[in-house]
């Protein structure tokens, strides 16, 4: 069982007021809040052992290097990667995706095919379009149904010998749909295609086992799971990471340099050019510790309760339509009320201290599918409460009254 009142004490920001009202933070799918335990690690780093890593012989540098590499091992264990060097630190999910997309440009040929899903975030569409432009590969899309679920029979039909890569998010940011990545990975592997899963939305809710999934690449951002912004990771199978060329040139990523030839460093350093986000990496590890101290089973169970309660309460509001009604979904509710513009609702809710997302959620193809300009999106984390949902519902009713 999860003691939400105690957990809330870990998050100083939840004590603050916005527009004179206690903050209700329902924009967790955009970024999660940071617990004191993670904030302390950040403060400790800059207070006590800030130094550049890997190169220094002095004590501070050793301490910082140890903490940074320990965090990598925490991340490795959390995702159950086989080796620590299969975890590449990046600036976040988008950076990770671009790293893989860039690497594949030397592996693809004209006529090769890449499959993405209709549920993708822009960051998961644009790099592949750019890759296709560079290589002459063809981009194919797995369509979705009215509930916001991928149509798997259509996916099966897209797979063939030309398929080289499949990219799909584990959970849709706009609708909360949990995609059947196990099936997608297995089927893609049957035709010899690699699979990259975008775990940005799943990592706060699910603990993926990359070896059990047999996924080739898995990416996420620390800030979605109570860590800081500007840091994330790319998991890649060792074989794949060795096949991909380096992404950026710079310090740290080289073994030997002369003007004739440079030998690249071994994994993971080959992909980690320059001074990394050292503090961010260490805090990422602390965030994973924090999440595990609460327990992903507890998190999933509690957030499911919030999702069911929130859905039930929202459905009582006349004219309210929920977008994304997949059987398997996480604690994200995207909705509109009648013809009221989502922006209007978001603005009024903000005046009452409630933070929600409005707009197309960087997933315009999904909005085009439903023929709407956008939605209001409320997304819950384990530190939210049913009482907050009640306050949100009352505020929403008031907003609808003002705007109708």
């Amino acid at each position, binding site marked *: 069982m999860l003691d939400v009142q105690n957990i809330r004490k870990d998050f100083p920001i939840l004590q603050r007021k916005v527009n004179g009202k206690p903050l209700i933070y329902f924009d967790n799918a955009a970024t999660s809040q940071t617990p004191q335990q993670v904030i302390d690690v950040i403060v400790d780093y800059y207070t006590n052992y800030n130094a550049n890593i890997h190169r220094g012989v002095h004590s501070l540098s050793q301490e910082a290097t140890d903490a940074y590499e320990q965090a990598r091992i925490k991340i490795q264990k959390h995702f159950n990667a086989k080796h620590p060097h299969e975890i590449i630190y990046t600036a976040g999910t988008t950076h990770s995706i671009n790293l893989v997309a860039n690497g594949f440009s030397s592996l693809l040929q004209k006529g090769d095919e890449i499959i993405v899903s209709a549920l993708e975030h822009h960051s998961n569409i644009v790099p592949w379009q750019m890759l296709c432009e560079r290589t002459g590969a063809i981009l194919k899309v797995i369509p979705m149904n009215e509930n916001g679920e991928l149509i798997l029979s259509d996916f099966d039909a897209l797979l063939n010998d030309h398929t080289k890569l499949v990219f799909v998010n584990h959970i849709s940011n706009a609708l909360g749909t949990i995609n059947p990545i196990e099936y997608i990975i297995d089927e893609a592997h049957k035709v010899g295609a690699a699979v990259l899963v975008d775990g940005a939305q799943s990592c706060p809710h699910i603990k993926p086992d990359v070896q059990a999934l047999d996924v080739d690449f898995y990416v996420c951002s620390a800030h979605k799971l109570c860590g800081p912004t500007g840091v994330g990771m790319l998991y890649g199978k060792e074989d794949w990471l060795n096949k991909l060329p380096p992404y950026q040139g710079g310090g740290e990523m080289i073994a030997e340099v002369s003007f004739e030839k440079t030998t690249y460093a071994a994994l993971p350093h080959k992909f980690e050019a320059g001074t990394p986000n050292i503090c961010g990496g260490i805090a990422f590890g602390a965030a994973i510790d924090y999440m595990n101290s609460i327990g992903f089973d507890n998190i999933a169970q509690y957030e499911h309760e919030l999702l069911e309660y929130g859905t039930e309460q929202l459905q009582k509001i006349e004219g309210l339509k929920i977008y994304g009604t997949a059987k398997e979904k996480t604690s994200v509710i995207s909705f509109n009320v009648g013809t009221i513009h989502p922006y209007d609702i978001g603005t009024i809710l903000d005046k009452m201290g409630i933070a929600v997302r409005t707009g197309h959620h960087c997933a315009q193809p999904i909005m085009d599918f439903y023929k709407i300009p956008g939605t209001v999106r409320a997304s819950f984390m384990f530190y939210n409460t049913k009482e907050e949902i009640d306050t949100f519902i009352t505020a929403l009713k008031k907003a609808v009254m*003002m705007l109708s």
Partner: protein
Amino acid sequence: MSIEDVQNEIIEEFAMFEDWEERYQYMIDLGKDLPLIDEKYKTEDNIIKGCQSKVWVHANMVDDKINFTADSDAIITKGIIAILIRAFSNQHPAAIIEANTDFIDKIGLKEHLSPTRANGLVSMIKQLKLYAIAYQTQLN
């Protein structure tokens, strides 16, 4: 009335309200009286970029004075643009170019002035002034 006079009038009206709810309710009502843009001008070209909601603005000049019409798919945005247009319409281009927009702050809508704000109030003001600059060059 000069732009400043109209702005002062708007400031006085908003001063009557005690809280944000009344202010927003009034703004929503003002949006309903917005001089609507002719459907034929509701084109992609006339959409103001930088708004989460769509805003269309059109301008025409009669007797050296500019009149604005507009529309938006969001009610609050409609209210904001209605306030702006009330201040800037039926004015000489030169006066619009020189006008300041501090009154937005004074009527308690300061939060909408941030350039990162999704409603794009800053873009709207810029667009109205661009129209004025364009018409001013016609007069010169």
